[in-house]
């Protein structure tokens, strides 16, 4: 009888320095798409995929976070270390590791690569960005590298999918091999003999912990020796930890006596060995002329021009987000309006028709309309990342971050928060200091997330005059820019306050790589843009859709039969006493009154009126009140609320135009004055910049801070800030004479 053993799928792991295009290789192998970022420590997500070997076998692929060394100093590097050494309970050690290297930057990239080679795991060296090597005056002898390290070396250009087939073939052949070259023949880091002997003391202690990877024990011992802060998980076990600590200290003093500096011995020896290796495989002809990348850098990071360029670029982006999207938005708007008309025709008059037309289509439609704008926003963010400008922006702005007391690593989480606060907060995991991280989390919601963009746009389009300032600057675009600047200003200000008062902490060092500029790869940029935009669409499809339905109900019920009779009677009277145009006008007024009455006695109306006293000083009325409450679920619902409440009639100009028109003309039934004025709009926008609202944010903050306390504190301080600022804007404006 045949012995049927369950054949486990082979596992491949991808490691490498950040910025090496590791994720592009991952995508090329697995066919999945994920975003590539030009910044260290970007995600701690576990990215897995499947690839098919040329032979047909299915192999699992794991994209590990970027790392500079196997001595971990962040959560990201922890994961890389733990997965490779097989000490993670939920992830089996890989059968093969692809070390992705930036072929133009071999020396530093080889640091991690040589550490990985020493662990004994089967390795393939992937020299990515090979096209740049070809273009440059340098040459890399791949055959020699292969011979010296004993592992396959494959040149690739991830973005163009060049070399991928060769890589797949190499993977297949490695899996077929039964006896890979032993680790100790692959790379010799030139360590002094005494060191190797002393390290044995440590090896003996941890041998049993690394049974899966016996060859990795030596390297691990070396790293344990070098870590001043004893961070390894080996110290978690009290017995082993104490023994280990004793041995390490003894080895250190012993080495010190012999003149060996244990704080530098690994990097120094390793780099010497790497230089030796590179000397044999790299031929470089010195370049005299400055590359394009360097020319660009001179301008973009120049004392004056750099800052000017940054502001100009930001200005252009805001301008375009506002104006370029207009065309597609109008088209979308009219299309949705037509859809509403169709639905109205299909369905018989009654609650169901109202639900679909006044509820779903109005609520969801008015949000979907902003899709072109969202696309543009994400397009620019992706463009930033892909060209490498993002790193320059960090370089230029780092001093500001330092002044405020924020870690430089906070830049990316805060920037992500402009898309959505949730991933922004998650990205703070790369910040080591607790107070640092807390401060960043607490101000992340102040970065205006993409959900607020439709609100700003709608209010600006409706209430900010479409005029030019100084003949060149567009007032509407400027207002939008102003809102975002306020957002950033508030974030930095609050962070500074927190860091100076109760979240005081150490100033952490901050070091990061400045990758060369790249011509953006359109496919990658569009891919990243689409990924992010997809989330927006999903939200519209789910939570906004569902809550629009609920909102419709709250706005349309309870029905007042007495009032219905009253209005019905009024209509009859009108029909008897007038005719023609006068009659139409009368009926229109009656219908308007009826709707308002219905609104006022609805659940939503009652709720809105209940909270109105609290928001009246800000210039808001009960409709906005409901909108604000609805915003807890999703900010965009403010728009949905206004659309549903105003029962916008299709006039052929498109949904949004109709809504804008309704808002501009809305008069209070009590005072007869306009409800929405530019001042009110401004006050509302300021409120939205500063208020902390959506449930998703609450949940993620509670989860990441581990306490309800910080979550409530955040809600409390932001609500106070929003209310106070709106109050200042509205009352201040009235005081100054604006109405």
């Amino acid at each position: 009888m045949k012995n049927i053993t369950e054949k486990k799928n082979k596992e491949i792991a991808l490691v490498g320095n950040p910025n090496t295009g590791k994720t592009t290789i991952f995508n090329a192998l697995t066919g999945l798409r994920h975003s590539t970022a030009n910044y260290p420590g970007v995600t701690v997500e576990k990215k897995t995929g499947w690839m098919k070997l040329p032979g047909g076998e299915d192999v699992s692929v794991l994209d590990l976070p970027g790392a500079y060394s196997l001595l971990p100093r962040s959560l990201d590097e922890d994961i890389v270390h733990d997965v490779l050494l097989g000490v993670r309970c939920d992830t089996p050690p890989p059968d093969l590791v692809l070390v992705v290297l930036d072929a133009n930057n071999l020396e530093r990239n080889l640091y991690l690569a040589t550490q990985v080679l020493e662990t004994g795991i089967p390795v393939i060296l992937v020299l990515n960005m090979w096209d740049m090597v070809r273009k440059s005056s340098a040459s890399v002898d791949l055959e020699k590298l292969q011979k010296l390290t004993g592992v396959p070396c494959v040149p690739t250009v991830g973005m163009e999918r060049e070399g991928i087939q060769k890589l797949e073939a190499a993977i297949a052949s490695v899996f077929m091999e039964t006896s890979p070259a032993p680790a100790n023949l692959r790379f010799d880091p030139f360590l002094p003999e005494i060191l190797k002997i002393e390290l044995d003391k440590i090896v003996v202690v941890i041998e049993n912990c690394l049974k899966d990877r016996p060859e990795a024990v030596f390297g691990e011992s070396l790293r344990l020796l070098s870590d001043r802060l004893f961070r390894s998980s080996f110290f978690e076990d009290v017995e082993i930890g104490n023994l280990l600590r004793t041995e390490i200290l003894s080895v250190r003093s012993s080495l010190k006596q012999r003149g060996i500096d244990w704080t530098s011995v690994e990097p120094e020896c390793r780099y010497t060995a790497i230089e030796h290796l590179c000397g044999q495989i790299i031929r470089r002809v010195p370049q005299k002329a400055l590359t394009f990348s360097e020319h660009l850098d001179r301008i973009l990071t120049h004392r004056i021009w750099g800052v000017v360029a940054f502001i100009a670029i930001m200005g252009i982006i805001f301008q375009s987000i506002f104006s370029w999207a207009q065309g597609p938005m109008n088209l979308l708007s009219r299309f949705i309006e037509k859809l509403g008309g169709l639905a109205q025709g299909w369905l018989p008059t009654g609650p169901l028709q109202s639900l679909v037309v006044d509820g779903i289509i109005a609520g969801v439609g008015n949000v979907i309309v902003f899709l072109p704008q969202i696309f543009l926003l994400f397009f620019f963010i992706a463009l930033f990342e892909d060209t490498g400008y993002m790193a320059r922006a960090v370089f230029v702005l780092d001093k500001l971050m330092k002044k405020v007391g924020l870690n430089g690593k906070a830049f990316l989480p805060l920037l992500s928060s402009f898309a959505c606060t949730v991933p922004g907060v998650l990205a703070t995991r790369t910040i080591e200091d607790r107070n640092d991280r807390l401060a960043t989390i607490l101000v992340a919601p102040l970065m205006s997330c993409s959900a607020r963009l439709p609100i700003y746009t709608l209010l600006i389009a409706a209430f900010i005059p479409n005029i030019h300032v100084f003949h060149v600057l567009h007032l509407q675009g400027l207002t939008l820019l102003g809102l975002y600047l306020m957002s950033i200003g508030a974030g930095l200000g609050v962070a500074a306050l927190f860091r100076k008062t109760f979240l005081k902490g150490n100033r952490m060092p901050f070091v990061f790589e400045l990758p060369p500029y790249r011509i953006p790869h359109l496919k990658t940029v569009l891919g990243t843009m689409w990924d992010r935009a997809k989330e927006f669409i999903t939200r519209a499809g789910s939570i906004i859709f569902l809550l629009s339905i609920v909102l419709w109900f709250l706005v349309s019920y309870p029905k007042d039969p007495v009032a219905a009779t009253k209005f019905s009677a009024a209509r009859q009277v009108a029909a008897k006493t007038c005719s023609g145009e006068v009659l139409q006008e009368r009926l229109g007024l009656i219908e308007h009154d009826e709707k308002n009455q219905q609104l006022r006695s609805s659940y939503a109306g009652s709720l809105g009126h209940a909270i109105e006293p609290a928001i009246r000083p800000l210039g808001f009325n009960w409709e906005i009140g409901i909108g604000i409450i609805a915003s807890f679920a999703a900010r965009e619902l403010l728009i949905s609320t206004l659309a549903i409440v105003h029962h916008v009639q299709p006039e052929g100009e498109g949904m949004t135009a109709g809504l804008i028109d309704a808002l501009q003309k809305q008069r209070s039934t009590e005072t007869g004055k306009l409800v929405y004025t530019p001042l009110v709009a401004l006050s509302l926008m300021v409120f939205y910049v500063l208020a902390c609202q959506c449930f998703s944010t609450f949940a993620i903050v509670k989860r990441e801070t581990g306490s309800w306390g910080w979550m409530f504190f955040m809600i409390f301080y932001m609500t106070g800030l929003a209310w106070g600022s709106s109050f200042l804007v509205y009352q201040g404006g009235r005081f100054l004479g604006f109405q």
Partner: protein
Amino acid sequence: MKTMTLDQMTLGERGIIQGYEGEEDLHYRLKELGLVRGTAVLVKRFAPLGDPMEIVLRGYSLSLRKQDAAKILVSRENQGL
């Protein structure tokens, strides 16, 4: 050869790393990134606001805050080297 700290170097200057002042955790990371004794570095530029500074070593660019560069001992490369 005069020994000074990295933040004291001026634009365009080249230097050789001699060691570190003090014992900070960051220093090990810098060593792993290639800033070990004997490494040649070039001061490429300073950020518009004066800080951080960009240095080039081993074929790549690194951004470093001046307060951290102040702990790195370097010696100016002799002319003609």
